[in-house]
């Protein structure tokens, strides 16, 4: 089924791909869960994100602070 966010409908097939994609990412220990959650939120907006948005969602809070 389609999902709506800000009146943008995600096509059902795209949504199916997205759901399976998120599940596979969660099963991957190399990808942090909070990054996946932020990426999922971004993808669910219905608009294909820009690379900078993906970068922000994935890495904005993961930079190491110590040398």
């Amino acid at each position, binding site marked *: 089924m389609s999902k709506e966010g800000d009146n943008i409908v995600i*096509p*059902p*097939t*795209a949504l199916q791909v997205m759901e*399976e*994609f998120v599940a596979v*990412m969660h099963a991957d220990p190399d*990808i942090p869960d909070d990054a996946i959650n932020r990426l999922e939120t971004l993808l669910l907006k219905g608009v294909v994100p820009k690379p900078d948005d993906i970068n922000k969602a994935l*890495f904005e809070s993961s930079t190491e602070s110590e040398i």
Partner: protein
Amino acid sequence: MIRVKTLEIKDFRGIRKLNLNLACNNFGICGPNGTGKSGVVDAIEFCLTGDVTRLSGQGTAGLSVKNHAPHVDQRTHPEKANVTITGDIPSLNKSFTIHRSVKNPKNVMITPPDAAVEGIISELETHPEFALSRREIVKYIITPPGQRSIDVQILLRLDHIERTRKTFTTFNNKCRDELDEAERNRIKAEVDLKTALKIDKLEHALVLEKINENRKILGLPALYELTKSTSFKSGIAALQDADKKPSLSKVVAQADLSALQKTLQSEEPAMLIDNRQAANTALEKLRDDEQALTIARRHGFIKTGLDLVTEDACPLCDTPWKADDLRDYLRKKILNAEETEKLLGKLRTNINTVLEALTNRIQAIVRVIQYSESLKPPVQHIEVDTYLNDLREVGTALKDFLEDHCRVGPAITAITKSWWSPATHQQAQINECIAAINTLPDTSIAEQARDILSVAQDRYTRLLLATREKRNRGSQSTIAQKILDHYNIIATRVLEGIFDQVAKDFSTYYRSINRDDEEKFVGTLTSEPAKLSFNVDFYGRGLFPPGAYHSEGHQDAMGLCLYLALMKHTLGDKFTFAVLDDVLMSVDTGHRREVCRLLKKEFPNTQFILTTHDRVWLQYMKTENLIYGSQSFGGWTVDSGPRVWDDHDIWSEIQNELAKDNVPQAAWLLRRYLEYTAVILADNLRARIEFRGDGQYDLGDLMPNVLRQWRVLLEDGEKSAIKWKLEEEKTTLAGMRATAKELIAKTNTEQWAINPSVHFNEWANLRAHEFQEVVDAFRTLLGHLRCENPVCLSYLYISPRKGLPEELRCNCGKTAINLKT
């Protein structure tokens, strides 16, 4: 999706005013070419989407909805061109009215206002595939794989997936570039530290040994481990010099400049030359490949053009070309995707190697400038600045190319630029800086040790930062690659599943239409990068593209089946409405009933609006109960639009003309109506008509033979009744035969072939009361050929359609005359 109840069209395309009552059921629209059928399709599309593909799609330059959708006489009054649709939305259990005017195509009026209804209409606006012409539907079959991939993606709403995939790819490339950059910076930081400490290898023991040598000079305790928090200067605080940075350390500067001088005096390393040459060769190959393509942009353009070559002409300028020659010509101009990817991968490695050396050189020259400025008096470095700018330009051009492969020209200029050895005047200023450093007074051993520790500390910290940066970029790049891989795998798996299911449904549908000779038929859809291959079985001889061996009629049927399979997958239960404009033009009569059955059986909840110029096809649709209503167009004039044939109204219309003593018009109406009916009857009764190669049969060709066949069939029925000793049946049929003879005689039809003076061509010369007799005779005769049941009223037809006739029957079954003897 929606179901259409009524359609009202005003001054739109070739239609002046037309009302259709579809009652949410399947509906047929029939008429010869140029009578306005497609105008109805355009009107439906316009009302639901605000657009008319025929006026805005491919090859419609110079046309527009606003200027050309109104009836030609209202072209300056677009406000008078309107379409109104009433209908239901089953999924919402709601009714609606949609009104749209050409004056403002994007402004749709939906009543009553309802957000959910508006949402469904909005979705139709963006995906108008519910209305397809034969040309549009067959494109799924005969289009090249690249274009099919795009078309099918759009129909299945898969473009979102493809665009997401592209974004992840771009993101992954960006992360990889950043990792490369971080690695170059780390290597440079390592080189700088080694230079400051005058060591060849960056090993803990060596670093500690050099650090401790200097600490010993200062009387500081030795360090025994090298960690992130190790301070080479620990203890210097006690000497109250800890934070004092040397403004210019002669010994470190000499080490830095000595390392630079050494490289400047050497020849360009073979490894660097090799990488520059390899990169240049690859870049030139790209340029030559893309020269006619203007790099990547034209690469895409040519690829698109290649897919668009469907006729013997250039798709852009219409210059005549043989399609195959043009395709070959274009193919030669582009590298295939695999080769390009391989080439770009190697090129990337070559350029990164060059960039690594370039980064080292840039940082060394930056240091020369810093030293020049630190000297008192400062040493001039304007020429060195120029050299630095040149180096940076080279680096920027190469990095730009890595980000965007369109920028191949500047990259070639950069990669061929000889930057290893600076110009003589540039070298002279570097030498001046070195000489000035060498003339600085020597500092004490202790001061030198303190300076070395201080600079080494800075460079060690920079190395740690660069290492951390590289590690971060590395893990980010790993995650980006994993994300891209995961998405590719999932998307491919889902799409393959979809294509498998679509191919399965397609094969089932096609087999059901062609069960007589292709019951083992299968079709496959194979998704590959940027293309969707479609192959079908050809009588067990293998899988081939649909256009390879199958006839046009079979391709038409495949187009419909693939479209239905795609729509079923895309919309599922929401596939409740489709307009098919003359889509089965080439399907032979033997398979049309199967098409009707397919639509009824597999899509019982879909409202189909089907147009055809073939009256027999329309009759099949009725006979098979596919459609419950229809509208026939019997002609068209620019002033009045389509002439609507209505069984119930045609006789009233003729009477009206006769009442006005307009015999020519009444005669024209009767003749066109009889022509329309004669085709249906000829097919129903399997009348023997003299074959004409051009397929053009007039009333004189058809009607006498139809009526002769009718009498033969009644006679056959009577013989059958006699054989089976059915007295009552025999009497009835004898009566029908007598009636038929009398009614046919009244129409003079049997005389047409032998006596032109009573030919229908003379009707217009008759007087009104004389022609009234002709009208009455034909009206009664046609009634005689129908079922008596007022609910049925269908023209009788022979069953089965092929082979030995068994029965003359109607749709409802009330009339069933046995023909078997």
